[in-house]
């Protein structure tokens, strides 16, 4: 029995071996006539296809011979994003100027009370300012990448612009890290205060009281407008962080197309967020009396607080054990 099986195996093996070299009627192979052509190849690849082949040098990207789609990204980057970025910034600045001219500085209706309430403690302010300062440099250096050549270069000349851009790139790559740390910090510190609730609906209905003097919809620690800023910063920042990290580690990003996608998201998000932050800076400084103190000294005037964050003031005053307890002015 075993003997038979053995014979069967040998026979099968022999058949396989013979099969391997068995005469097969092969059609004529004419490599010249069968040559691939560029036209046929692109037709077969369809839209967005790129021609790739084998290459011996150990560079994963070198095997890509022709990638016409890169030109699409180049146009997007060189033209569309360039325009969007410029308009996002100019547009927001124009809008705010208009707003300022119409509404003027938003004053504290009740005037300064002289009493201060601690609104943001040192840790909060550290997180905010780290985030803010890095963002500004990142935004400026990033913006420079997109629009610098048409805006800054004609002003300061090639040499200075080149040097500035080189430093800008380094600053961008390194300051991204404190930015991300600060971003995490503000999430931890403020997430709980930024969950949307019913109060926000009312605030929004009343336009945040920004448009009309004397209107002060109630708000907790953060009103809906601030929540909007918070979420814009958190989500936008997260998007920027993720895409930024991907761009910083191109070897870990699978393909050129992926990188291009991340870059596009990065630039678009940056443009939108920059516009939002310009508005944020406006309202936190020249736009509203008393607002800067919240992040400056950390203490705000009680009247300002009552007008803009009535519910929060109530909360704080009710909580006698809190460090945020109001105390008389000197």
């Amino acid at each position, binding site marked *: 029995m075993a003997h038979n099986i053995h014979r069967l195996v040998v026979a099968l093996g022999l058949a396989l071996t013979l099969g391997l070299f068995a005469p097969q009627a092969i059609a004529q*192979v004419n490599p*010249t*006539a*069968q*040559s*691939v*052509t*560029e*036209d046929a*190849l*692109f037709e077969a690849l369809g839209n967005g296809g*790129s*021609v*790739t*082949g*084998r*290459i011996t*040098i150990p*560079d994963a*990207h*070198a*095997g*890509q*011979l*022709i*990638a*016409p*789609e*890169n*030109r699409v*990204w*180049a*146009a997007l*980057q*060189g*033209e569309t994003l360039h325009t969007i970025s410029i308009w996002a910034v100019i547009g927001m600045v124009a809008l705010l100027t208009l707003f300022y001219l119409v509404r003027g500085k938003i004053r504290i209706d009740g005037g300064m009370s002289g009493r201060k309430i601690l609104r943001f403690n040192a840790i909060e302010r550290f997180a905010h300012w780290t985030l803010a300062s890095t963002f500004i440099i990142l935004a400026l250096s990033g913006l*420079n*990448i*997109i629009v*610098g*050549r048409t805006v800054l*270069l004609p002003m300061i000349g*090639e*040499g200075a*612009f*080149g040097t500035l*851009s*080189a430093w*800008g*790139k*380094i600053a961008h*790559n390194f300051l991204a890290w404190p930015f991300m740390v600060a971003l995490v910090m503000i999430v931890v510190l403020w997430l709980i205060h930024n969950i949307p609730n019913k109060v926000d609906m009312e605030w929004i209905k009343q336009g945040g009281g920004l448009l009309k003097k004397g209107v002060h919809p109630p708000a907790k620690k953060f009103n809906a407008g601030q929540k909007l800023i918070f979420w814009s910063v958190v989500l936008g920042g997260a998007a920027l962080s993720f895409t930024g990290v991907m761009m*910083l*580690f*191109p*070897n870990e990003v699978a393909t*050129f197309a992926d*990188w*291009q996608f991340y*870059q596009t998201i990065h630039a678009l998000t940056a443009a939108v967020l920059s516009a939002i932050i310009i508005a944020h800076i406006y309202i936190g400084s020249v736009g509203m009396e008393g607002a800067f103190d919240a992040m400056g000294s950390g203490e705000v005037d009680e009247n300002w607080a009552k007008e803009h964050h009535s519910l929060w003031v109530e909360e704080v005053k009710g909580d006698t054990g809190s460090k945020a307890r109001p105390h008389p002015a000197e």
Partner: protein
Amino acid sequence: MARLKFLCDADRCIECNACVTACKNEHEVPWGINRRRVVTINDGLPGERSVSMACMHCTDAPCASVCPVDCFYTTDDAVVLHNKDTCIGCGYCSYACPFGAPQYPQTANFGTRGKMDKCTYCSGGPEPDMSEVEYIKYGSNRLAEGKLPLCAEMCSTKSLLAGDGDIIAEIYRERVVTRGYGSGAWGWRTAYGETVTV
């Protein structure tokens, strides 16, 4: 004024890599930087064709349009060159280039690529022609000596053509008519928005 181009006749290319080492030799290009390379399509199959590729010196060069520091410039011969003093090594051009031309001293992460290097069509850079500083930064300047790029001059089968676009297109066209086949002017449509029709 001539409009200089490259054309690789893939029906002549045998992937001998002479263009690659001629380039290395002429410009002392260091290890890891490949201004020119040869890619084989359908490797090992009937229909296989190899194509030598470097910077094609595109019309409306996409690298130039994305460069944040505007370091690219196009010469009167339509050669796309760049200024290494201005280059910040951001890598954008490498993503814009359809041909994989831009090269960097390092492939490291964290934006530490170093200054971009690419095919100069053997015509140096913004430094004075044939100066040592030009050689060190960009390699030799054959065009200024009245010579064409060495890769094409040394191509073993005269597959890689360099010179005025109209002339090399005509040479290619004649070849296709003579032999009755041609796999196309690889990359021309992408680089120049036109191809060689026979």
